[in-house]
């Protein structure tokens, strides 16, 4: 996990949150370092994690997690991590044997003409429902925008997230972390609809953006941390903090805008 990010968020693995919906958003850059952070953070915290990884393979996350101090393979073996490799599931769906009745493929909507995400939700529900010794359950999704590319309607995606939120955050007092892509001037209206809707329902938004001035070697981007205090209490205003960051091999350093080490 990224120690500096924990400080900025006021988070610690000894006391993970409960019932929180965190939205990870990236624009003009790759926000996947945030996914790696939360994955290793919640595993370190002793939570049971269901990771719906739609775009990369298991070994990709495993190699990065080792640099952040967590062993995904061991966590999977011990039952702490339930890993859904979307790419493999899709291959199984299209090239594999006939589906077993007791084990529906979570991505079966890809080959159906009325795509709805019930099977995916059932997978999440079954993964996190087992009563075991781990702390509060966590659902992590990377990344939600892929579901639209696979044929799911925006409403179906929002329904899926809603069900997950009710089940994980409200019933189980766990946490949900979801990554979406967005672009300014994007013509992908379906994606923008999903992103805007999720923003309204999030407790915490981490928004990684590429610099407006273009690529820079020492500052890889800017992150906005938005604490949605207005969601819980009517008169409160959201708290917005902005930092810049630089990604290194095993760490990401954060600093106030304009105060990169290269400049000082």
């Amino acid at each position, binding site marked *: 996990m990224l120690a500096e990010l924990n400080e900025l968020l006021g988070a610690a693995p000894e006391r993970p949150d409960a019932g929180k919906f965190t939205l990870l958003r990236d624009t003009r850059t*790759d926000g*996947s*370092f945030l996914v*790696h952070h939360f994955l290793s953070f919640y595993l370190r915290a002793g939570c049971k994690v269901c990771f719906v990884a739609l*775009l*990369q*393979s298991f*070994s*990709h996350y495993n*190699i*990065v997690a080792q*640099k952040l101090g967590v062993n995904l393979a061991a966590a999977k073996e011990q039952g702490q991590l339930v890993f859904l490799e979307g*790419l*493999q599931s*899709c*291959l199984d769906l*299209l*090239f594999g044997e006939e589906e077993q009745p007791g084990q529906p493929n979570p991505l079966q909507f*890809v*080959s*159906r*003409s009325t795509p709805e995400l019930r099977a995916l939700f059932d997978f999440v529900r079954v993964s996190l429902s087992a009563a075991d010794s781990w702390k509060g359950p966590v659902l992590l999704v990377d990344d939600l*925008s*892929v579901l*639209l*590319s*696979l*044929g799911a309607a925006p409403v179906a995606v929002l329904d899926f997230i809603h069900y997950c939120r009710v089940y994980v955050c409200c019933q189980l007092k766990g946490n949900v972390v979801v990554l979406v*892509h967005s*672009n300014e001037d*994007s*013509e*992908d*209206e*379906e*994606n923008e609809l999903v992103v805007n809707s999720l923003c309204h329902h999030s407790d915490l938004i981490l928004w990684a953006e590429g610099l407006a001035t*273009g*690529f820079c*070697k020492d500052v890889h981007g800017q992150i906005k941390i938005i604490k949605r205090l207005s969601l819980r209490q009517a008169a409160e205003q959201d708290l917005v903090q902005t930092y810049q960051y630089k*990604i*290194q*091999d*095993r760490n*990401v350093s954060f600093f106030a805008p304009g105060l990169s080490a290269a400049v000082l």
Partner: protein
Amino acid sequence: MGVIKLGQETSLHFILPELPAPLLNDSHGKELGDEAAAVKSEDFQDSMKIAWRYQNLPKMEVSPTTHTKFGHYYDISKKMSPELCQSVKLHSFYLHEELPFEPKMKTWNMNSGYARLLQSIQRIISQEGFDGSDPQQKQRNVLRIGIQSLGSVLWGDDVCCSDTPEDPHSLTKFLYVLRGLLRKSLSACIITMPAHLIQNKAIMERVANLSDMVVGLESFIGSERETNPLYKDYHGLVHVHQIPRLNSLICDVSDTKDLAFRLKRKQFTIERLHLPPDLSDTVSRASKQDLAGSAKLLSSGCGAMAIGKKHLDF
């Protein structure tokens, strides 16, 4: 082993004799920038996909040489020797020659051309052992796949003809399944897409998100830049939109993003875009493309307008 997958209108018989001869000695080792190496490098054992707008020069596996820039330099005034072509196992896919749908394919809910191409790729991967299913195979090779004009009408897709295609998800589903096949085998894939024909920009955004690497070639032919004196040494620009970030937090980002390409008599090269120093009174911190625009106006006699473009009014 190498594999070439083709679009519909060409077959191996037409493309193979046109391949340029690789350069195997050091005398042509011109120093390209790191970004060019990142653009052309396909040496990852992990799977990679690259989307180009033009046809790329494919690489062939030959007997090992000590040339460190192997695969980067070709002499386009000479053709590749037939012996070299024949020493490599090639497969091709020509949509009209393929067998009709297998019954199971019908439930894929995807354009049939794409579905059959996926089935063909999967069959070759498993039959030739690129998925690691044959531990006896002593020489581990990478399967190289090239797909031409994906998304065009020749694949049975109308995404190039209409703003609201009949099945907007077939193309992205195809890319997702292809990504899965590549991740699970020793293979790499290069795809060209006629992006200028695809009117639905939402689809292009999704295609980019599903790719590891996205590179665009912009030719000056037919555009106003062709006559711009600042671009006279080049034939077009190279845009690196996205580079892969695999198995690591960091990615191999280069210092410069301004690249141009040049097609000389013997070589196709990609270089850092160099503009001559601007010695006029209007020098300022404008971007290179603004500079090019102003220079063009200056040369056509509109001095006042050129200054105005720089947002400086003296």
